[in-house]
């Protein structure tokens, strides 16, 4: 079963892609992207793990004790922080798309037209004020 963590990473990535392709809601879409991203966490941490090793912190154990790969952990750490802010950016774009077109369904998004969105007034009737 030495391949299991890598298979989990591949499965996470595939299920995220399925979600991205079949999504009918932009917020759901951002969530699916996060699932895809977590596949990279599993892959990196799986690559950096070694049985019988300690965490790469030599406070309680003297330096020289076998430890897992610190490079992978540093990569995942920065990835999580930047990923969180990027999710925020995508959610803001979702807010803007909803305000423009009145729908969260990517199927119903229309190309932007020059001179503003003519459809804005009548969609506000379908989706009354929050």
């Amino acid at each position, binding site marked *: 079963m030495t391949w299991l963590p890598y298979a989990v990473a591949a499965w996470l990535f595939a299920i995220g892609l399925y979600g991205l392709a079949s999504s009918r809601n932009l917020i759901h879409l951002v969530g699916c992207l996060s699932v895809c991203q977590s596949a990279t966490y599993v892959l990196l941490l799986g690559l950096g793990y070694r049985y019988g090793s300690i965490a790469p*912190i030599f406070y309680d154990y003297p*330096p020289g004790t076998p430890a897992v790969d610190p490079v992978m952990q540093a990569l995942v750490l920065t990835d999580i922080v930047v990923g969180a802010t990027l999710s*925020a950016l995508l959610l803001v774009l979702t807010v803007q798309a909803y305000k423009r077109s009145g729908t969260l369904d990517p199927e119903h998004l229309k190309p932007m037209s020059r001179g503003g969105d003519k459809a804005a007034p009548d969609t506000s009737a379908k989706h009354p004020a929050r």
Partner: protein
Amino acid sequence: MSPRLRLAVLGVALLALVPGAAATIAHLPDFGATIAAYGERINAIAPGERHVANMVSAINFDLRGLDTLGEEFMLLAAITGTVVLLRGRRGETLTDRAMRLPGRAILPRSEAVQLTCRLAGPLLMMFGLYVVLHATVTPGGGFQGGVILASGTLLAYLGEGYGGWRDMVRSHWLDALEGGGAVLFTVCGLAPMLTGAAFMQNVLPLRTFRDVFSGGLMLVENAGVALAVCGGFTQLFLEFLEETREADGPEEPGEDSA
């Protein structure tokens, strides 16, 4: 393209990728058997060379500090984009009251929630500071601690409501924190060059191993990251919560909701 057709295309593409993925997974090192040589060398050398116990911090702030500088500016760019998009639509004016959904009852905050938030907020901030300060000795650092600090400010929103949160958190300070943190990190890279050293070379005294103040320049960089992450995440919370504030009037012609 209909959803069904799109899923069929995706299915075909995934099926075509399966042999490649299987072959790659078969050739990866066995899980838990070994780690990359680079990480092994860092574990062996960095405690002696940099006097720090936390290898992840040593990589983030020293050995691969240039990469972290890039991450820092990605963070800055993402947050700037968020703020510009939200604020550009909303305008710069501020009000003190949150928006109310018409017809929804206004429930006063229970005292239990208020008390819990007032007690837990400062404690959480203290824990965040602890995590930031111990970056070079125990698990922690500017990234994790900065996010914990930012979450502490959210408890103020939960406990005091929108008005109290607005009184406490000033947008200008957050801008200064976010930008100042990024500037501090950049200065940490450039300042050693004034002494003739390389970019981001650790020129400060390294102090003793397992000491809170060990690590030299790493401590300053860590503080810069903590400031930037704390300011940036609080800025994100602020901008999203601002979306719920009561509008002064119609924001744009032809649109009476916001």
